């Protein structure tokens, strides 16, 4: 491409930089999304990788069907209560570093589905890094969200993004939904007795403290 000539002339042979900057630069340049298409937003998500919008320009076009190979979970669509534990399990299966984009009004806040069946915002289940408004958002907005996430990745520190140690992960409770009750004393007892649903990932705990 001729780029090598320019770089070779413009830059010295040895560069000094922070390790975090180098790692973050590498990470942000190949964000692999996990496919989590839940509703109509997923159609726009597919379109974002098409030739017209070409998410590949930002290194984020390789949608992986396995969470173990993914960095970003794009929650595109409304999350039902039945799907919520599944979503959390897939998030837990993603290795660090991992980020979440909440795509569209439904994933962000429940949208028009203000009812018993839909979780009112995916941030009740997983920590969200970027929210996208819209119903559905245009593919350009998803591309913009990926670019915003890249900016955020550049501010990260690799120390915050270590995986949860194995022995802690073993204690995690298998996902299940909390029972829907009328708020009686039995509920309070159940809440006191219940173990944490799942252990918070390292950067989640850092964020809350």
């Amino acid at each position, binding site marked *: 491409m001729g780029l090598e000539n320019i770089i070779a002339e413009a830059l010295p042979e040895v560069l000094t930089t922070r390790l975090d900057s180098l790692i973050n630069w590498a990470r942000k340049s190949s964000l692999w999304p996990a496919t989590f298409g839940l509703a109509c937003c997923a159609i726009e998500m597919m379109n974002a990788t098409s030739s017209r919008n070409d998410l590949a320009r930002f290194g984020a076009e390789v949608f992986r069907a396995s969470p173990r190979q993914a960095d970003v979970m794009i929650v595109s669509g409304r999350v039902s209560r039945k799907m*919520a534990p599944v979503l959390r399990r897939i998030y837990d299966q993603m290795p660090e570093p991992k980020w979440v984009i909440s795509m569209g009004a439904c994933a962000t806040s429940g949208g028009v589905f203000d009812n*018993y069946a839909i979780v009112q915002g995916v941030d009740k*289940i997983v920590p969200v890094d970027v929210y996208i408004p819209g119903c559905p958002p245009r593919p350009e907005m998803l591309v913009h969200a990926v670019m915003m996430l890249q900016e955020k990745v550049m501010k990260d520190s690799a120390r915050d993004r270590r995986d949860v140690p194995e022995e802690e992960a073993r204690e995690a409770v298998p*996902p299940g939904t*909390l029972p*829907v*009750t009328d708020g009686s004393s039995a509920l309070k007892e159940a809440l006191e007795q219940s173990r*944490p649903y799942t252990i918070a990932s390292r950067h989640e705990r850092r964020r809350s403290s």
Partner: protein
Amino acid sequence: MASEPENNEPNPIPSSEAAAPSPLVAALQREHAEWVTDVIEAFGEITVVVPREHIVAACSFLKAAPDTRFDFLADICGADRGVEEEPRFEVNYHLFSTTKHHRLRLKVLLDEEDTHVATVTGVWRTANWHERETFDLFGVIFDGHPDLRRILLPEDWQGHALRKDFPLRGYEPYSLK
């Protein structure tokens, strides 16, 4: 005098008393008079209200009899007529015959205190999931059902979501923590 021409015009929606009963209803009544407590004909559709204890026998007859041949159970659905209504719940069986191409709807009415009805999985196996759905959303218990579990709502759900007294947003906001 003015009302006479109106009476002579054919009524598009005949009432059940005035018009001759449909051959399907007549077949049911001929077989067992107690099976038919009420007949509702509207919009070209026939609905027969069947007593709860006779629903399996009536379904078996309708499936097997040569002039009805309802070999296809199109749907079972529940309905909640309202908290103040008595009987409150109904279960509707939508039947179709793939050879005769006619349809019939059977309706069973249930009290709120006693939402039991016998299963028709022995007649049509497809009733299995339809009855699970009706149980899941309305709390109608199908006696003799081989596997009466929830099918749509999460397994640990409490309550039945399509009942009229179920709050639209559920009992509490969802949270995993």
